[in-house]
């Protein structure tokens, strides 16, 4: 371990992978509830909240761990304060634990979600940002401590690299964009308007900046590619991400009670959103091709390139097919959106954080050689399963759009009768994904800890 600070990155990674496993297990319960609504002691709303909140939190924990690693490497120094980072880690884990307990209590007894100081005690009842106001404040404090510690580390040696700039810029943007979700409005239209600022400007804005910075970092680490060239393309990618993504927000304002001009703004800019993601794919392939033959950590590169590809396919292609208002009018509010959400998050962020783990974990643990076969196994279990999950939900969405929106059949009839087999297959492929996630967790705890003989034996077999 080059720096003691990397232990902190490991703490964040450990919490992230464990939460990843929880997220996938809970997702299978949610999938089964589409077939048997009373399958579990907690209702679907609580299970879905846990599924998505676990996803968001483990990705954020992964980003924080990755950032602590990147700033120490780029600045070539320890973190400004290791105890502060440790405190921030444990405070975050405790706060997240308290929020989860609150969700479960509310799920078992909805009346416990009482009003306190004009806000809900356990669950705000707002999609994705269900965490109550007291937790919002703790989350903001945690992120501010994290940003402060990272910025002070950069200032210690004043090595202002492009990757650090975009990474910390993206994280600051992320922190700022949490604020529009922290106040109550009487109008549901205004509620959703500001809610989309948080959700869209996170996943199609600040998170993509973080992704671009980490992609450049990983390509440099894995391939030793020229930092200047990587930086130039990173700026082009992030510039295009924000040029298309900020006003692409308009595609969420077609049908929620906002003026008609958003149909034009959203339609034009969101149609362009796949372009920067395609540039990222090209960037990954170009860099790999130019430096072929010197890669030690092949599985790390595998995940990195796969992240770029599935970011483009999931967030780009699966998004652009229903982003035009004339199409979206029929698909809005159907399972088509769920399909897009699953593939986009898998490609853009799940694979991103897993890439960072595969790239940095062997370096942190000092493992020059490690058994890479488990990483490939996990990748194919997860990817094949996710592709089929997305195909089943896309099929369900197409059936739903046709029968419900065009023919006028009832929502419940379509869901319970016509789409039943899609739900069954989705749940089966969910189990496949869980197997992949379990292999990841096992690999995470094994890399750098296996005896040398076992590693070389496995490498030979692979």
């Amino acid at each position, binding site marked *: 371990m080059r720096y003691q600070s990397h232990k902190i990155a490991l703490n964040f990674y450990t919490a992230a992978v464990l939460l990843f496993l929880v997220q996938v297990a809970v997702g299978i319960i949610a999938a089964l509830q589409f077939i048997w609504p009373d399958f579990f002691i907690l209702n679907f709303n609580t299970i879905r909240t846990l599924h998505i909140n676990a996803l968001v939190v483990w990705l954020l924990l992964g980003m924080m761990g990755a950032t602590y690693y990147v700033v120490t490497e780029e600045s070539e120094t320890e973190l400004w304060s290791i105890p502060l980072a440790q405190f921030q880690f444990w405070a975050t884990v405790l706060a997240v634990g308290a929020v989860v307990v609150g969700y479960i209590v509310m799920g078992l007894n909805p009346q416990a979600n009482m009003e306190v100081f004009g806000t809900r005690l356990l669950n705000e009842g707002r999609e994705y940002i269900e965490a109550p106001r007291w937790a919002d404040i703790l989350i903001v404090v945690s992120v501010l401590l994290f940003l402060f510690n990272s910025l002070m580390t950069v200032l210690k040696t004043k090595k202002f690299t492009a990757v650090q700039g975009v990474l910390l810029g993206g994280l600051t943007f992320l922190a700022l964009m949490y604020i529009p979700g922290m106040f109550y409005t009487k109008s*549901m239209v205004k509620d959703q308007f500001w809610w989309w600022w948080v959700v869209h400007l996170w996943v199609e804005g600040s998170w993509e900046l973080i992704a671009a910075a980490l992609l450049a970092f990983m390509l440099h680490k894995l391939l030793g590619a020229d930092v200047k060239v990587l930086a*130039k393309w990173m*700026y082009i990618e992030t510039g295009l991400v924000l040029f298309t993504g900020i006003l692409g927000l308009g595609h969420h304002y077609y049908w929620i009670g906002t003026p008609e001009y958003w149909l034009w703004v959203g339609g034009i800019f969101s149609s362009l959103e796949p372009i920067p993601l395609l540039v990222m794919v090209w960037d990954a392939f170009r860099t790999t091709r130019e430096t072929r033959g010197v890669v030690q950590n092949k599985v790390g590169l595998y995940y990195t390139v796969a992240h770029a590809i599935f970011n483009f396919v999931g967030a780009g292609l699966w998004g652009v097919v229903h982003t035009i208002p004339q199409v979206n009018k029929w698909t809005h509010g159907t399972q088509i959106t769920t399909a897009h959400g699953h593939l986009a998050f898998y490609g853009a962020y799940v694979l991103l954080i897993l890439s960072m783990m595969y790239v940095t974990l062997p370096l942190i643990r000092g493992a020059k050689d490690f058994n890479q076969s488990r990483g490939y196994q996990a990748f194919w279990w997860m990817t094949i399963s996710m592709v089929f999950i997305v195909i089943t939900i896309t099929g369900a969405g197409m059936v739903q759009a046709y029968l419900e929106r065009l023919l006028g059949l009832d929502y*419940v009839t379509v869901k319970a009768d016509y789409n039943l087999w899609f739900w069954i297959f989705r749940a089966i492929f969910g189990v496949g994904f869980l197997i992949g996630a379990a292999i990841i967790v096992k690999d995470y705890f094994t890399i750098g800890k296996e005896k040398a003989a076992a590693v070389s034996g496995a490498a030979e077999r692979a």
Partner: protein
Amino acid sequence: MSTNAAKNLFIYGSLLCFIVLVVLTIDTMGKLDQRAPEITEKVDAGKKVWHKYDCIGCHTILGNGSYFAPDMTKTTERKPKTYLIKFLIDPRSIKPDSAMPKLGITEKEADDLIEFLVWISKVDTNGWPPKPILAVAATSRAASPGQMIFQKYDCSACHQIQGLGGAAGPELTHAGSKQPDAEWHVRHLKDPASTVKNSAMPDFAHLSNEELNALAEYLVTLK
């Protein structure tokens, strides 16, 4: 393009886009109140009920939410209020196969929630959700007098015939086989609870005798 030029394009281009977004946001905020009815205390109380029970954890509203249960944007346009209140308080007493559990919603909360849903149904959503074009085409064909009454009072909002229509009330595809007595149907339409205990269906006593008879005669033909 040099790295510096790319960097400047990223910084200033992004700032420009953000400024445009802020300007459009200010303009939108100024227009939203004209695109929706006034928000009364009761509507606000209903919105708080929506949040309290995390309704969006299963339903969508304005098309956003969880896709597990029906969208709530236009629910009150077609479903009768009396039915909705009974359903919200105890869903499975009205519809035994409903996926919705009993959440402990009080009568007042249900009333407020419906007021909020009435408000949301009147928001100008640029024509969303679209009218199902094939269903509209099917209902414009020539029909019997009873069928016309069925369409006029939007009975298909709650009842299905041959797979088309809502699932809130019983399916009517074989209504004539189950109850071939036209007079029973007239009595049921005038006062549903007199023939079906705990019925959540609103009465249609305001229909003329001619309309009631035509509708009953149509229903007994469904076999």
